[in-house]
């Protein structure tokens, strides 16, 4: 096997390794769902902490705004990658539940962003509590799916 071909196949292996087929089997789908939920939990709890520390006067606004931007973006990307997958028939319920939770998370992060932007300090703890509860539910589903 000559060098150019070897390089091309190595590259192919790398690229394909990063791809999940659009219609994965049940196990792969479960893994993907668990991973996506894990990421969502991470973003939800991060924003929850940001809101709490902002409320307590322990956070700098530019840092909060920056983190919100990244968290929303990351959640968006993860949600998009997940919803693009075709669930296997046995996983329809998982698909619905996960998609709902991810959607709720997206909504809450958007609310957090707006509240911070408008400096509606009164809303911080409410949204933070909502995020805490949502994170718990997502974590439970993640645990059951793993």
């Amino acid at each position, binding site marked *: 096997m000559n060098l150019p071909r070897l390089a091309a196949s190595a590259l192919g292996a790398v690229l394909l*390794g990063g791809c999940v087929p659009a219609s994965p089997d049940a196990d792969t789908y479960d893994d993907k769902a668990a991973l996506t939920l894990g990421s969502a939990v991470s973003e939800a*709890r991060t924003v929850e902490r940001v809101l709490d520390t902002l409320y307590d006067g322990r*956070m*700098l606004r530019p840092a909060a705004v*920056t983190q919100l931007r990244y968290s929303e973006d990351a959640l968006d990307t993860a949600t998009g990658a997940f919803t693009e997958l075709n669930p296997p028939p046995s996983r329809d319920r998982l698909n619905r539940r996960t998609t709902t939770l991810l959607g709720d998370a997206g909504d809450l992060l958007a609310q957090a962003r707006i509240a911070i932007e408008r400096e509606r300090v009164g809303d911080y703890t409410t949204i933070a509590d909502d995020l805490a509860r949502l994170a718990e539910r997502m974590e439970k589903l993640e645990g059951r799916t793993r």
Partner: protein
Amino acid sequence: MKKLFAVALGILTAVGGFVDIGDLVTNATVGSRFGMSLAWVVVAGVIGIVVFAEMSGRVVAVSGRPTFDIVRERLGPRVGLANLFGSMAVTLLTYTAEIGGVALALELATSVWSYFWIPFTAAAIWIVLWRAKFDLVENTFGLLGLALVVFSVALWHLGPDWGDLWHTASTAAKPAAEPWPSYWYYAIALFGAAMTPYEVFFFSSGGVEEGWSEKSVPVMRSNVFIGFPLGGLLSLSIAGAAAVTLLPAGIEVETLSQVSLPVALALGKVGLAVAILGFFAATFGAACETGLSVGYSIAQYFGWQWGKFVRPRDAARFHAVLLLSTVTAAVVLLTTIDPILVTEFSVVFSAVALPLTYLPILIVANDPAYMGAHKNGWLANTFGSIYLVIVLAASLAAVPLMIWTKLGTT
């Protein structure tokens, strides 16, 4: 008294200058996902860098020749060129990551997009490389980098269960949720972050910039033996703070602001501000070091005049390389690639490049023609040889693990 001041300054600068963007990101990520179960890697990495920095410092102090200068003589022009290529590519990648890190720190401080800061950061760094005095740069950013001690303070303030932390660290108790391939991938990444190749080029070339001689060896050793391990403690503090506050919450560090979150939780606004200052100083200082290292390695291979100890017009090719590297790094970052992703690549490829860097040092440090009576004793050679094996193993495993775990995401 003046001597004592110089020694203290050297140690403090070494501590503050130890942490760069790779250490910041990797230690925080590891703390948030693996707790203290990879602490042993930081210890191993610190010992490794201490062994090789001392060797390369001794080489330049005694022979007046920095490492890359001698690589070609000992390995020949062809192998030397391959070595140059590999080392330079990794250093340029690290330079890019550091500039990105500065932009991220500025973004954190202002909430203005990091991409906006890139041209200004690159220009500022280049101007410093063009005009500022070498030891002024080193001392300023080294001392300002001590702001990162805020992580140790935060960890203390959080009042963690020290026994539990110690237990996790000493038994390397990996959390059940994380798979073993990811564990080993991050072990290599952490190792690469601690033992960055550019550190050795910079340290030995800096010896010429600062005019070291045989008499400088004791001070050099105090910087390395005291300063670097203390710097390692900063790395462990960053990991520890993340382990205590983020791991239980299932928060995985992926941004610089998440790296600083534990400090905000523990110490509030003031602590956070100090942490951001520390981020800026550490990354700006490291950017200067890596930028210069790209120039040092090329100039020293070809025999061109290099250094900030001469006028820029007397080291034209060297400065042209610095300018070109800076522009290249800025252009890469302006493609809106995530600077954190660049950092992750830079630490993994640092691990890949380590054997290239360390083998020549070990060879030269044993050469009586350069070292005379100061050549390696049995202690340095024992450690050096053991580390060469470790470094080779890490280098071979790095890319396969990176692909298998998809940069640690599975």
